């Protein structure tokens, strides 16, 4: 063995830089070990360990919220931390923590093994954290596939439910297809960028820095364009942008509710993190990328909102509304091509989205019965009266998702829209300012439409609506609601409070996101 080489490699592999990710992975291993060594009766401790561990990691991240080496590629160029990496790590840990909490509630209703769920959530979260710092296509692909495979399992986790399995299958096929397309795009980019006959090519063409250099030198290469759009379409699948959004309602409906939340929040956030990185890499092709993104944004906003308009199944509804959120966020990505601060706006948006979504999913978890796929708007009738706490959390969560002041979601939308304005008025931008205004117009229309269905949900929970009396012998189709455990009450309360406070006072988050 060449020890020199290994030494050099060791020097270039600063494991401490990815300590949070490693901690998550280790926690996953600890859970597995605990399952083996704990007696069967104590298996219920495993989720508690997971939660405690994640809380610890979260605290660690929050304490060290500033300590991060920005701009230095590590692991031989595999990773590069951006200005928001620490924030994103916290985001993903918080998200996986919440998913674990929801999982505890939701899985209690199912006769399924529990430990694997928590392990996979942890591993997937760690992979997403790495994904959001990717600086190399191999790492991107591997981390992305880890996330995807993890989600295949999670989506079809409750195998006693055929709907869940169907959702898993649909996610499997569409996911594999999009992986294939993404891979083909990566291959094309790798190929052309490494071609020695072309100017600016490099031997490490899978590295984003090298790729950027190549693209800058060849701003009009067809294969590179093709590779770019294929890679973008692979990411579009993750974030659920039209036309790669079509799987969303089915999979969201069939997946267990915590997994739906995980898909809706973490998976989407990871997609946007990587999209922001890629948009930076593809900057020399800004015209093409901007066209693709703006078209996608328009279609996504309109489609998501329209399709959600008449939806009665709340899981499909929130999936489709999530599609429209992806559309607004795509606007932010578009702005980020011109105005760097737009990235901060996107992350702010995502954070608000996290708070609101988990609030709503938390309520959904408690309202849902054993059949996770069967969650209708009707089941929410009288919720505000019978359980004012859940009703309040739901209203705040939905209000924030709808972008209603003074909730956090509104600030997110506002910041994104403002950055789009800033991009429109910037001296150099890939699109004409009219396009930006048009996009904003579409976004506003979308917001207005979205009010209808979000409000419809609140209406279902708050306003007394007429319901057909039960016929003799008919059983109430509304599933029994799960009582809210104190720790869940605390969690949901914090989420709702966070949505309000972040809407009123953005100070700390804004500082963190370098908004001031």
């Amino acid at each position: 063995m060449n020890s020199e080489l290994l030494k050099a490699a060791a020097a270039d592999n600063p494991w401490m830089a990815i300590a949070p990710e490693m901690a998550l992975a280790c926690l996953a291993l600890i859970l597995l070990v605990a399952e083996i060594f704990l007696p069967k009766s104590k298996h219920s401790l495993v989720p508690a360990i997971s939660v405690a561990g994640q809380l610890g990691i979260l605290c660690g991240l929050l304490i060290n919220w500033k300590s991060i080496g920005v701009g230095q590629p590590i692991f031989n160029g595999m990773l590069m931390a951006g200005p928001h990496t620490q924030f994103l790590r916290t985001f993903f840990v918080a998200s996986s923590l919440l998913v674990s909490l929801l999982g505890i509630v939701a899985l209690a209703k199912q006769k399924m093994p529990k430990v694997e769920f928590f392990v996979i959530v942890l591993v997937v979260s760690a992979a997403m954290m790495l994904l959001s710092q990717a600086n190399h296509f191999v790492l991107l692909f591997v981390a992305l596939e880890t996330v995807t495979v993890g989600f295949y399992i999670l989506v079809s986790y409750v195998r006693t439910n055929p709907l869940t399995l169907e959702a898993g299958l649909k996610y499997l096929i569409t996911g594999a297809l999009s992986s294939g397309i993404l891979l083909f795009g990566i291959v094309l980019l790798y190929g052309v960028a490494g071609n020695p006959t072309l100017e600016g090519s490099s031997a490490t063409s899978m590295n984003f820095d090298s790729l950027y250099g190549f693209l800058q030198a060849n701003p009009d290469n067809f294969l590179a364009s093709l590779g770019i759009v294929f890679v973008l379409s692979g990411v579009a699948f993750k974030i659920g942008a039209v036309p790669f959004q079509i799987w969303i309602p089915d999979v969201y409906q069939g997946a267990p509710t915590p997994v739906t939340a995980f898909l809706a929040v973490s998976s989407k956030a990871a997609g946007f993190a990587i999209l922001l990185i890629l948009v930076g890499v593809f900057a020399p092709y800004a015209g093409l990328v901007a066209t693709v993104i703006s078209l996608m944004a328009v279609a996504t906003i309109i489609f998501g909102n329209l399709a959600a308009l008449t939806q009665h199944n709340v899981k499909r509804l929130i999936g489709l509304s999530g599609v429209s959120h992806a559309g607004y966020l795509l606007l932010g990505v578009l702005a980020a091509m011109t105005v760097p601060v737009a990235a901060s706006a996107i992350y702010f948006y995502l954070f608000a989205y996290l708070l609101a979504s988990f609030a709503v999913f938390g309520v959904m978890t408690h309202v849902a019965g054993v059949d996770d796929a069967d969650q209708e708007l009707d089941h929410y009738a009288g919720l505000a009266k019978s359980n004012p706490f859940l009703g309040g959390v739901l209203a705040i969560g939905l209000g924030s998702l709808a972008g209603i002041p003074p909730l956090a979601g509104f600030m997110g939308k506002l910041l994104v829209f403002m950055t789009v304005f800033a991009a429109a008025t910037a001296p150099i931008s890939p699109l004409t300012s009219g396009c930006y205004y048009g996009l904003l117009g579409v976004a506003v229309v979308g917001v207005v439409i979205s009010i209808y269905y979000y409000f419809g949900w609140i209406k279902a929970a708050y306003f007394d609506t007429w319901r057909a009396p039960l016929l003799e012998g008919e059983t109430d189709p509304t599933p029994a609601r799960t009582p809210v455990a104190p720790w869940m009450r605390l969690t949901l309360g914090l989420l709702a409070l966070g949505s309000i406070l972040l809407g009123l006072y953005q100070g700390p988050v804004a500082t963190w996101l370098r908004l001031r």
Partner: protein
Amino acid sequence: MNLPFDPLLVSIVAPLLAAGMLSLGLPAKLGKAVAAIGFLLPALLALHCWFYFPTDLGADYTYLTGYDTGLSYFGINLMLGLNGISMPLFLMAGIVGLASGLYAIQSKAERLPLYLGLLLVMQAGLMGVFASVDVFFFYFFHELALIPTFIMVGIWGGRDRGYAAMKMTIYLTIGAMLSLLGLIALYFKSGADNFTIIELHRVIAENGLRESIQSNIFALLLFGFGILVSLWPFHTWAPLGYSEAPSSAAMLHSGVLKKFGLYGLIQIALPLLPEGFSNWVCLFAGLAVFGNLIVIGLVTIAQSDLKKMVAYSSVMHMGYAFLGLACYSAVGIGGVIMMMVAHGLSVALLFLLSTSIHHRTKTFEMSDMGGLVKYTPVLAAFFVIATFASIGLPGLANFWGELAIFVAAWDFSPTLTVVSVSGVVISAIYGLRAAAKVFFGPESEAFAKVVAENKPADLCICEKIPALILIIALFAIGLWPKTISGPVTNAAEVLYATAPSAAVDTAQLSR
């Protein structure tokens, strides 16, 4: 007199705090007391600000304080202050808020703490709207006040509440979004460093804005705000929403919150975008006069539902306001402010009394009433005062604004003035007809039945107090208009010192 704290901030925070305390689930009595303090404090502080309001301020702001909420990168700071234009409205918000709050406290609404809590949030938003110097927060507070309205309509509304709440929400969201886009566009196009009105004024005075930009932004603001103010034909949310809304929400929304759009146009859109204004003025003045005043005026006559009639009348009166805006002069703008204040008080009073009437007649259908004065002379007297106030009787607040608007409008377009003055007759017709149908003449059969079951009692003290607050304010301004018109005219003369060049042309064209 200097207070040891920022009265504006406290007037916003106090209701919010009270709402927060209510959400903790206080015992009923204590909860009511907390709510009462939450409503009273802003009103007192508003009175304080009015009493010590400097007379030599021009269009400048007093009580100016800024707070960083974390969005300074985008130029957004919570900056509070009052100028001559916002002070009267701030005062009005405090008074109407107090009245509607007290009225709500005595009401027997189901889930009262939630009701009061939402109302308090609304109150905080209202105080914030008029105290904000920062354009973003101006919008933000409006939305803060708007959301509880929707919920209150939805939960405590009338028969058609679901549809009404939804329609109102969507309509007003459209309006709000349009105006938000306009405001953001204004900020970016002006190149200002921050989002305050002061800065926008300064920057635009220095650099100016291209006419096409002005025109586009003004259109956004006009139609955005126009929807919020129920400019014809974007008004259909208002009658439905108000007639379904619970009384306190209707009072606060139609009385105060609706003025947001007009206030925005006066404080922001018109002075900053004079050329945009002159491109659009003919359109909106026409819509306001023919649509709001005449068409809606006549539609109001056709109403047989008392609350709907009040709601429509409030839509109609907005026509005067838009006409006043069209004048682009200190007289017209001052008139609009006077009218906004007065209309806020009077329409709130009308909604309050309508509900009190409903408690006694069990119906809003005017043909099912009659002769109520026999049982409730005080209620009748109050209603007559409110009606005559909204008709524009001198001695009550509304007269001044309408008169000033008419006077100013002649300069803008005599034709429109002639048409709009006929609104005076229209409002007399529906106002007096309502009073007559409800209170005078013999009892209708339906009402006789209600009386037989439950003899109506006159207003109780808890209903009287909120009504009296409004009536006193109406008389105070009616008899002593200078207290409002003084600061207003000081500010308006500065803001509207020069008429836009193009506006003069259009005025001559329309002559």
